């Protein structure tokens, strides 16, 4: 079980969170009309081996969306910040 260091609540169990996928993708601006930009945002993912930035939602806690840096091989978490404080 992963333990995620929520900046608001401290070190908490994975079971309090829900996974939100790749956090390195940037949502296009609302005015964007190119379907390719939206396809990239919604569907295409890198699936890297190693360092991965990913969203976790502290849904059973402070309800903050977090950007967690996790190694997809070792599951070591090396960083966790509030998503709103990470410039996308």
């Amino acid at each position: 079980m992963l333990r995620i260091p929520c900046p608001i609540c401290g070190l908490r169990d994975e079971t309090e969170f829900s996974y939100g996928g790749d956090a390195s993708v940037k949502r296009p601006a609302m005015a964007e009309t190119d379907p390719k930009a939206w396809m990239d945002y919604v569907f295409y993912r890198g699936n890297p081996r190693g360092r991965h930035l990913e969203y976790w939602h502290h849904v059973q806690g402070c309800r903050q969306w977090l950007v967690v840096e996790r190694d997809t091989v070792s599951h070591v978490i090396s960083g966790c910040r509030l998503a709103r404080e990470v410039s996308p």
Partner: protein
Amino acid sequence: MTASRLPTGGRIDRSKPLSVTFDGRPIDAFAGDSLASALLANDEILVGRSFKYHRPRGVFSAGVEEPNALVHLRTGGRHEPNARATMVEAFDGLVANAQNAWPSVRLDVRAANQLLAPFIGAGFYYKTFIGPFRGTRFWMFCERFIRRAAGMGSPGTLEDPDRYETVNLFCDVLVVGGGPAGLSAALAAGRAGAQVVLVEQDAQLGGALLSAPIGDPSDAWLEAIRSELSAMSNVRVLTRATVFGAYDHDVYGVVERVWDHVAAAPEGQPRQRFAVVRTKRTVMATGAIERPLVFGGNDRPGVMLAGAVRSYVNRYAVLPGRHMVVATNNDSAYATARDLAAAGADVTLVDARQTVPDELASQSRAEGVDLRPGCAVLSAKGRGRVAGAVIAPVSEEGRATAPGKTIACDLIAVSGGWSPTLHLWSQRQQKPVFDAEKACFVPAGDTVPTMTCAGDARAAGGLATAIADGFAAGENAVIATGATNAAGHVPEAPEPWPGDDWTRGIAPLWTVTRADGKPAGKAFVDLQNDVTTSDIDLAHREGYQAVEHLKRYTTTGMATDQGKLSNVNALARMAQLRDAEIADVGTTTFRPPYTPITIGALAGNETGHHFRATRLTTIDEWHREHGAVMTEAGAWLRPWYYPEAGEDVRAAYVREAAHVRQHVGIVDVSTLGKIAVQGPDAAEFLNRIYINGWKTLPVGRLRYGVMLREDGFVFDDGATARLGEHDYFMSTTTANAAPVLAFAERLLQTAWTDLEVHVTSITDQWAAIAVAGPKARDLLATVVGDADLSREALPNNHFTHGRISGVEVRVHRMSYSGELAYEIYVPALFGRAVWEALIAAGGPFNLKPYGTEAMGALRVEKGHVAGPELEGRTTLNDLRLEGFASTKKPFVGSVLRNRPALTDADRPTLVGLEIDGEVGALPGSLLFAAAGPTEGRGEGWVSSTTYSPALGRNIAMGLLKNGPSRMGETVRVVDFVGDRTLKATVVSHHFFDPEGERQNA
């Protein structure tokens, strides 16, 4: 009698005899016995039948690795299959029975399976999928036979009467294993002031020391450490507890068998307790498991592990035979030979090594042991139990170099070396490496730096080494956690027993064969799964040579064995066949649980109604008091219908729905999701998340909205009211309340961080009551104070504040039923008071409550979409909602909803269906054209269905290819499950009052 209880000695309490039965026969047992030791003491040698061939099997080990002595334990609701007799503590009233045998373990008719052995070797089951019998009636016949024959014990069918509980533990250092290394590690960490949890699966601390004769020097050592540990308040010792899983981030699963060692737990006490342990550092002092030797007939009852035999003699005072052959390739079995000789058995010790350490040789000869270096057991003789051993001189590869000679014996104790118990270590993604010198897999490096193996678990060496190694591991673990006290010195190790260092001078002996390289008879590498060397050979011949393929093809190391006994011998055989090193063959992946655990322990108290929380509205009790039949809506319980005398669900909902259209009805809609959307940019936020426009909605008004997912499919719908300048009240469907909130939070926190908006769930803060029907306004006028509800003052899609029985409420005028209707929002705690005030005022208007079924009937009559249509695969166009979508602004999903596949004109589109006849359509039925084949997925499906009292017929909503252009066409509605075909006419889904005149009354 050959196996018997010794008159003295052992760690049992002869003053406490216990009443135990096996297969109905009384078994003499004492406190301190295991079920296995009691069985042996009573000369119950044949205790089980093997998995596939139903060969007779006896107790093989004295621990968790037991492959044979799996029994049915207890009766009634406490019945438990596959209990390892070696791990079951004897208790007064213990009832055990043999399993996997009929009519009895002594006479098992399925032993005839052995005759089929040539046909049911490795992979036989997979082979039934191919070849001449595939798909035939004969195969189906065999399949039935295979399924019935498979499996070991039978599960219970009664409800478990026991309690289980779940706890969380936090510590600095977790020590797994209470043997010499683990005790020393806990001592070091405890002295240094760390919070320590020490977990031992046995009832007693001591590990291998418990197998030493009573009075051994190690007894005093053990007692000193035990008492020092028990005096430390920062050390928590869990015995009868197993660490079954090692998980990421230093989380461990532990099951403590709190009251498994008695007939029934004391009142109010849990039988087992599941602990989730979160630790900073872990010392794996998990010891090692002895390896069997592979030779012909090595599965006969009476062949046992040498270390286990020593346990039975010294710990349980059981002499499992009189005439013993001890076979080994390493030093460790010499202690067994010594202790057996001391207990009065005559012992022949065959050591496959050509040269034997001098001091061991002279010592054992002095004790009367007949030592034969350079020899091995070629095969075991006897039916039902061992009667003799064929002994032959062997080469280094284990081939007999001369014909064997049979010597009579009633027990063969074997030691093929030891395997460090690396299951837990390996569960954390680590692969052990093979150490050729010590002939075992050892942990390689600390790729998980928070976890260290100590003692036998890393093949450190003998007793003194294990103690020093454990102590150092404990000290190092503590340094990492910041404790500052000194750990002091390593406790002086006791005088060891002969051959305590099994890593020294071991000579690998993987299979003992005749001179021609073949075993003399069936030679098992996996006793539990009936895998023989010839199965490994077959797998090799047929190409299943990779270790993970080998495991699956032969089933070696599966079930409760999990590679404990079988792994290395199977790998070694494959390495021989491939002419490779064991290190290159590798080992399989270990996964939790290390030993079987009960589902009950994992579930804890979360069973039945406690499995998950049930959500109740604040009006719930009224519904039950008034006879409502409840239904589940997600986690919520809602009134389904309120039956009047003798009514079934259909009669009740038809009456309730008709009543709403004729008079007035009241329904509890508190379960609707409610979200407060607040802040200066709230309107902009709504404008982005909904497909329709929100910038122009004035305070005091509400509006229906639809939202899409990012991928352009429909997500949810609901009405949102503007309560103030920057204050909106959003409602969602009951099912999507949580996902919509999470999605809104995601957008605001990850993408639209420039918007000043807060979203807050207020579902539980507000009760909601819908009042619907032609008399709704007249009724409310009598009960709502401080508000003007007149047609002019409160048109549709407006709301006003008011007061009912002194409670401030908000009255939204909006309609789901299509009638003149209001939704009344009430602070949750006053929900029931307001509901009852409405009921009281409703008498003159013939007000009646209605449930979700009638609500559904009313909305289908109106053609409103709900859950069955908002099912994640439908688009705005599919649901004929595209007219709501703004063309002037972008919104979530506005680009991707125009993908070609989502705008294909051929897509099934929402229609109404008038069903012919008295029988309604079932949701999920497929739609087919009136003429043509009834094949494939059809042209659409039925989503919602009801009997319409307003129309006096069965109607349905569905999605049909090119639906809008097919009005008036007859289609077939096919229910493949019930094998029924109905006819229906395609109509508009706005069945009733399409102009909406009634709701605007």
